[in-house]
């Protein structure tokens, strides 16, 4: 089961396996492992196999694309017609989508069957997957640990090879942090590269979808499926199509790697720091040079994020009113009472906290001090990156300050949970592309992630930098034992 997307696609092309056979193998593995890991919220073998047979028929007609027949799992934030889309919430527990997200329609057009919908923090708000209405996900490397979040189900599914790849979304680190904590590769594209249409909204100026898979090469191939202009997303960018795999083989000689001093200071666990330093040594051996850069305002990214993201969320989530779709309270006195009971019963505690923070910072008399101030510092953070990229081609550092923490360790204190995204959030605020790839293990034998931040629209270069590292190392081929 430890095959890359590329290897599966070659297997299908040579006729050595059918998509239906591949899907059956993965579905069997899901059936066996999901009771332990809780990575999937919805599995529907009939639907999966129907899509797989259609992919096989398409191949038989000679109409297969490069990834036709290769299955993927989708984070339950994406709407797919006829499938539930719960977003990890009681609010949408019974919602079956009547339409396809743009990302889903792209996978359908590529002929890639869906293995099901993966678990996630409620409305993508969380860094441990513990806020899901459908229960926590366990880390396949150590079932006492969280898989990270919010795309924790997708990360655990890929790490346990219950799916060869999965989709995720990243608003403040929700692809990269769980990828780091589960030892897989994940990519958050430049804001605007992948359409948000049909992706349930959290913070619209930050939300971006991307691939999660064992390797960077896999992520490049999946980006070729996911990216592209879509008129239905008003922030989708009209850019010429690109082949994200085009630079994979480029040598790294002369590559300038920027190391932000702010990412290597207090707060970084020693074992994570050591694994990242060892990765930097590999890069130097490959001919790259490192330069120190400064991101002086990045320390403010967590406070800025916890103004902007809740503000946007409080607006986006006002749509859950018990009228047009989703949960409605069973008993109420009048319309206001219906709204208040529906939202009190339908949302979990973390979502309510963020809606209330957002409501407060946008309320009369506080807007300038909070929301506007946060937007101004957001610009300073973006300008820091622009300045840094004058001296380097990519920025490297840790993805998360520690390896995966234990289930329940941070649930009592929201602020401690928020600080686990301290190295990822600035990238979303600036709208830059970022990746995480496995680079070793911590003292507790849990995976460590190396973060690569690319220049705006620098995905192909970033994937090149990741792929060359993966040619020189085998961390991305490691699998948890005992599964």
């Amino acid at each position, binding site marked *: 089961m430890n095959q890359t997307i590329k290897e599966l696609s070659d297997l299908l092309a040579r006729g050595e396996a059918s998509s239906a056979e591949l899907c059956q193998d993965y579905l069997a593995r899901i059936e066996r492992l999901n009771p332990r890991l809780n990575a999937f919220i919805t599995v529907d073998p009939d639907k999966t196999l129907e899509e797989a047979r259609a992919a096989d028929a398409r191949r038989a007609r000679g109409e297969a694309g490069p990834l036709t027949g290769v299955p993927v799992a989708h984070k339950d934030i994406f709407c797919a017609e006829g499938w539930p889309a719960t977003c990890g919430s009681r609010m949408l527990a019974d919602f*079956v989508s*009547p*339409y396809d997200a743009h990302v889903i329609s792209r996978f359908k057009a590529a002929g890639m069957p869906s293995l099901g919908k993966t678990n996630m923090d409620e409305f993508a708000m969380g860094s441990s997957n513990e806020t899901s209405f459908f229960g926590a996900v366990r880390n396949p490397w150590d079932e006492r640990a969280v898989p990270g979040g919010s795309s924790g189900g997708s990360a655990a599914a890929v790490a346990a090879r219950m799916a060869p790849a999965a989709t995720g979304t990243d608003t403040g680190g929700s692809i990269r942090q769980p990828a780091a904590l589960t030892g897989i590769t994940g990519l958050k594209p*430049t*804001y*605007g590269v992948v359409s948000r249409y049909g992706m349930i909204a959290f913070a619209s*100026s930050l939300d971006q979808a991307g691939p999660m898979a064992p390797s960077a090469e896999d992520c490049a191939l999946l980006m070729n499926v996911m990216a592209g202009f879509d*008129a239905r997303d*008003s*922030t989708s*960018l009209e850019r010429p199509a690109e082949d994200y795999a085009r630079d994979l083989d480029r040598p790294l000689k002369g590559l300038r790697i920027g190391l932000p001093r702010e990412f290597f200071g207090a707060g970084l666990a020693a074992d994570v720091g050591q694994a990242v330093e060892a990765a930097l040594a590999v890069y130097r051996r490959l001919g790259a040079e490192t330069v120190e850069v400064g991101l002086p305002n990045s320390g*403010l990214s*967590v*406070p*800025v994020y*916890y*103004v902007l993201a809740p503000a946007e969320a409080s607006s986006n989530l006002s749509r859950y*009113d*018990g*009228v*047009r*779709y*989703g949960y*409605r309270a069973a008993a*109420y006195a*009048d*319309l206001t*009472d219906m*709204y*208040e*009971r529906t*939202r*009190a019963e339908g*949302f979990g505690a973390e979502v*309510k*906290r963020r*809606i*209330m*923070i957002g*409501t*407060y*910072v946008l*309320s009369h008399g506080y807007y300038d001090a*909070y929301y*506007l*101030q*946060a*937007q*101004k510092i*957001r*610009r*300073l953070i*973006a300008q820091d990156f622009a300045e840094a990229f004058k001296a380097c081609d990519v920025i490297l550092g840790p993805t998360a300050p520690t390896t995966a923490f234990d289930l329940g360790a941070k649930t009592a*204190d*929201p*602020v401690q949970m*928020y600080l686990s995204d301290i190295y990822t959030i600035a990238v*979303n*605020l600036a*709208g830059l592309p970022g990746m995480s790839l496995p680079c070793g293990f911590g003292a507790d034998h849990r995976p460590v992630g190396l973060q690569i931040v690319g220049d705006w629209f620098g995905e192909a270069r970033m994937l090149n930098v990741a792929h060359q590292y993966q040619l020189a190392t085998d961390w991305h081929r490691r699998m948890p034992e005992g599964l």
Partner: protein
Amino acid sequence: MLSLEDVRRIAHLARIRVSPEEAARYQAQLNGILGLIEQMQAVDTSGVEPMAHAQEVYQRLREDAVTEPDRRDAFQAVAPQVEAGLYLVPKVIE
């Protein structure tokens, strides 16, 4: 610092019902989060243009033409309560 009364007011603005015990818990947690956010106030941002979006994009215009098919039945099939093509809510006018 938010008072208990502030928390109740914010919860009402957000249309979320909170019990007295919940209000006390949210008061402590929200004040913790606001404490984190407070760091922003030390930064001099005079002359800095607020950044609303990651890209400098402008709203696209399109032809004023009908492009969506009529899918009312499919969309109302997921509503909590509908009748004759209408969404039902508690009576708002006596």
